[in-house]
């Protein structure tokens, strides 16, 4: 009995120490923290050709080992320039969050030219999030095949990453999902003829797609709104809950960890110095890579 109580106490103590460590991490020098997180992000997820990877690996490692370097405006300008030049050569294949990496390096370089970078960084980060979500929302409104659910309907039928959602919400079987992907491959694959192909669906998939479309539009539009709202507005208090909800839900479906991480870094950069919010950003940052584990496959294999 005493032994069990001792183990409980040790467990509670360990948990307490972990919570304390996370709180300390989030309350630490915010500029030092977000610059370190940015370097980890770039080292792991900037990717690109050798002329992008090599300078990022060298500068990123140097920046992690030499904290003083991370305080240099020129360091971030150089890092951003290498990223921009590399991505420019591969413009046709570069995802949108890679642009955010470059903008954030520029924001760091410009803020570090001032004597007090914390304030300018917070403003930059806030408006980068607002602008990113504003354009994402705008595109979903402009697009002819988003609001009526067409895009998500198609994605649920053909995207391997969303297969589990198609099975869960739409009642599709794994065989039907595989057959749909084969149809698509036949269409775009090498062939002597081009003709339409029919995908197998269900009414439930169409309903789920409509719900996903409007939910996505609502969340992204709200994130843009709350980040654009002045600090004194009550809406501004929803920044962290909405951004965290977006990251936790979106990257569960499409685990683009680099995108999630840059959003969390931007969120943390503009968050208050103390309290639960910076801790929440830090915890989600630490745990987000767990989304890369193929949970659905593992659970399917076990069942």
């Amino acid at each position, binding site marked *: 009995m005493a032994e069990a109580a001792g183990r409980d106490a040790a467990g509670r103590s360990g948990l307490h120490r972990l919570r304390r460590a996370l709180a300390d991490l989030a309350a630490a020098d915010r500029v030092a923290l977000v610059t370190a997180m940015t370097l980890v992000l770039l080292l792991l997820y900037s990717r690109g050709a050798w002329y992008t990877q090599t300078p990022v690996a060298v500068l990123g490692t140097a920046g992690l080992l030499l904290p003083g370097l991370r305080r240099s405006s020129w360091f971030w300008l150089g890092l951003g320039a290498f990223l921009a030049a590399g991505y420019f050569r591969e*413009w*046709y*294949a*570069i*995802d*949108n969050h890679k*642009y*955010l990496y470059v*903008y954030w390096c*520029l*924001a760091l370089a*410009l*803020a570090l*030219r*001032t004597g007090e970078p914390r304030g*300018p960084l917070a*403003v*930059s980060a806030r*408006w*980068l999030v*607002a*602008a*990113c*979500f504003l*354009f*994402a929302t*705008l*595109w*979903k409104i*402009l*697009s*002819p*095949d*988003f609001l*009526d*659910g*067409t*895009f998500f*309907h*198609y994605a649920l*039928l053909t995207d391997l990453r969303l297969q589990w959602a198609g099975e869960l919400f739409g009642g599709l079987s794994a065989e039907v999902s595989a057959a749909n992907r084969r*149809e698509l*491959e*036949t*269409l*775009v*694959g*090498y*062939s*002597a*003829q*081009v*003709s*339409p192909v*029919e*995908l*197998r*669906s269900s009414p439930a998939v169409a309903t789920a797609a409509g719900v996903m479309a409007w939910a*996505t539009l609502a969340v992204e539009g709200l994130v843009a709104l709350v980040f654009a709202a002045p600090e004194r507005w009550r809406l501004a208090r929803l920044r962290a809950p909405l951004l965290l909800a977006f990251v936790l839900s979106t990257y569960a479906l*499409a685990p683009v960890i680099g995108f999630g991480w840059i959003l969390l870094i931007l969120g943390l950069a503009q968050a208050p110095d103390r309290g639960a919010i910076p801790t929440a950003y830090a915890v989600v940052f630490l745990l987000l890579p767990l989304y890369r584990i193929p949970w659905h496959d593992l659970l399917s294999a076990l069942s």
Partner: protein
Amino acid sequence: MPPTAPNRLTWLLARYGAPALLAVVALFQTYQALRHELTPWRGGGFGMFSTVDVPSARFFRLYLATDEGEIPAPLPATLAISFREIQTLPTEESLDRLARRLAAATWAVPDLPLVALERVTEAPETGLEAGRPWSPGGEFPVRAPLPVPLLAGEELPGGLTRLDALGVRLELWRYHFDQETTRLEVERLQEARATSSPITRRETDG
């Protein structure tokens, strides 16, 4: 507190420089996508997950013109970057340029009887039916007796015969999803033709 005049530019740039750059690039991307067929998924406008019109929804068909008719041909992996650029932002000029490069390439066929397109349309079982999907940078699904492109300076491997193509026809297609019928409908976006000039043909022959 806003700074005094000498520091105003630094003050403004430090706060709004990066977001302003994002907005400028995104507005340019939006213009390019709405006016010039740039896929909304690329270009820094944050249009990902908004449309089926992803770059891979745009796909190619390549045909070699021969004395026996048109023969479908695989896309050379060596030109994968050009194909991807056109999938992202197709222009008439870029498709024409690519068609000319393809017309100048050296093609070879396995030592098997060639089957012209017209016969394939009538009888798909002749061996030219769809193969595995081609993805830029990946393997392309050559099934005999499809023509294969040879790299510059590459010697003709055994079992292949040089194909004297008269020219090429390159098509760019796009699919979209019709929710009502659950069909992927297709439309041809662009087409380019190029002839193998006598000079080109002599060079490739030699």
